[in-house]
């Protein structure tokens, strides 16, 4: 097993996904299976290879530094599960 139960719990916590004991057991097996399978990449020596960043050589596009959007608070809040007076409402964070 590439990952153990504690690791599954730790990454689930990092990913902010609550998991049940049953899910943790299944994920331990599935994630290990996937990671063992991708381990075949170790066969290739990539020490002298640059990581791929683009398909065709092109310079990053630039544009004028001007405001192109805004004044749409109602639109932004339209789909919020809880909103109040142009604010998103979340559970209390600071006591």
């Amino acid at each position, binding site marked *: 097993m590439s990952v153990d139960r504690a690791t599954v719990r730790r990454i689930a916590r990092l990913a*902010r996904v609550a*998991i049940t004991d049953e899910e943790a057991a299944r*994920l331990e097996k599935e*994630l290990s299976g996937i990671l063992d399978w991708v381990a075949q990449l170790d066969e290739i020596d990539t020490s002298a290879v640059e990581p*791929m960043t683009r398909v065709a050589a092109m310079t990053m596009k630039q*544009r004028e530094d001007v405001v192109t959007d805004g004044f749409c608070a109602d639109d932004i809040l339209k789909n919020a599960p809880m909103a109040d007076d142009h604010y*998103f409402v979340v559970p209390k964070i600071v006591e």
Partner: protein
Amino acid sequence: MTELTNLTIAEAREGLRGKSFSARELAEAHVDAIDKANDALNVYVLPTPERALDMAKASDARLKKGEAGVLEGIPLGIKDLFCTKGVRTTACSHILDGFTPTYESTVTANLWAEGAVMLGKLNNDEFAMGSSNETSFYGPVVNPWQRKGSNAKLVPGGSSGGSSAAVAARLCMGATATDTGGSIRQPAAVTGTVGIKPTYGRCSRWGIVAFASSLDQAGPIARNVRDAAILLKVMASSDPKDTTSVDLPVPDYEAAVGKGVKGLTIGIPKEYRVPGMAPEIETLWQQGVEWLKAAGANIKEVNLPHTKYALPSYYIVAPAEASSNLARYDGVRYGLREKGSDVISMYENTRASGFGAEVKRRILIGTYVLSAGYYDAYYLKAQKVRTLIKQDFDNAFEEVDVILTPTTPGPAFALGEKTGDPVEMYLNDIFTVTVNMAGLPGLSVPAGLSSEGTPLGLQLIGKPFDEETLFRTGRVIEEAAGPLFKPHDWWSKAA
């Protein structure tokens, strides 16, 4: 008027301009067909009949005034990954329950600007993560094709399974789709339809729900090569809202259809002859070679030595980027929110109930490979492997104009047949995923039927931004393979 749904886009375009029928009649024929079929096939997660009829009415007015757009009055289905203003868009995930965008994706905006008519939102794998459309929160799509002498329900491929099945079943004239690892080409192959994933950067990604941003591309699924060319011409554009979209003019793809392959050199990569490949796939591939040879093309074997590493490196890159993209679903700004004792548990509970099993699996893999100490060993390594895969193709394209491979390792399988082992499901994309890793264009064209009587496709891979050669070559295969592939209608309820 059911025969109207059988027309190709090119034929409907003639009919509308020649006033043989109206856009309204064309839209009504499709609305009726969807009404009769959707219970059995589950292709539309949200049909929008009123909007379709309103848009068709406006199309008729423009046709009358001689102001028709390129796609005036053509009824299309839209994958639920594309944000549509005022029309629910969920990526077929519970976590986007009720999300109604206040903006329109660039690709769909391009379609509406040319007069296309929206029939509704099409089913897909949740967040486009799947190869069989079985991970959708709205349930699986059923392939209109069935095996000879069997009524077992088959999958339509994925993730654009609603798009492929709707086009095959004549429930739209064409559909938008997206492709991150094969999600346009693989479903097109198993439904007897044509699908093209253009070069990365050809279509704007703005307003498309993000899965893996360095791989995602939009493209059409249609009933033949010409229709796919007509649709891609309109979908593609350079867009200031997507910095990865290219500033190259969009060619007239339709003009390339029919130019033939005389003098072209077709590459055949021996690495695609994978162990355990069905003999009928090998036969179909050979048949494709013979057809192209007969049409005047030269055939040349090419080497793509890093092919076997494409899928494992994809399953690092795609989940890593997905885990980052899907971090935005936190129960604060849109969609589902579950209660929690504090803000962290609200996030955790929302994401636990909002995401399905496959999405959670990929978020966790992605989180793991990006976590402290693992970045170099996984993500960076995989991006280096991408460079090698890309170099393989660059070398091959020094000698050939286009590469021919099978699209899938086999025909459509039955619902539930491959849901046990994630890696087994991932292997469906073995021939398509290399193309995404290298950012190249790929087209799947129907080429024959399996021994089970279900469709099989061949894939053409092109040089960056050389979609025209794919359309030219695809048309030759389509012509050689014979009349349009069509399943017999078992799904429509009696009127």
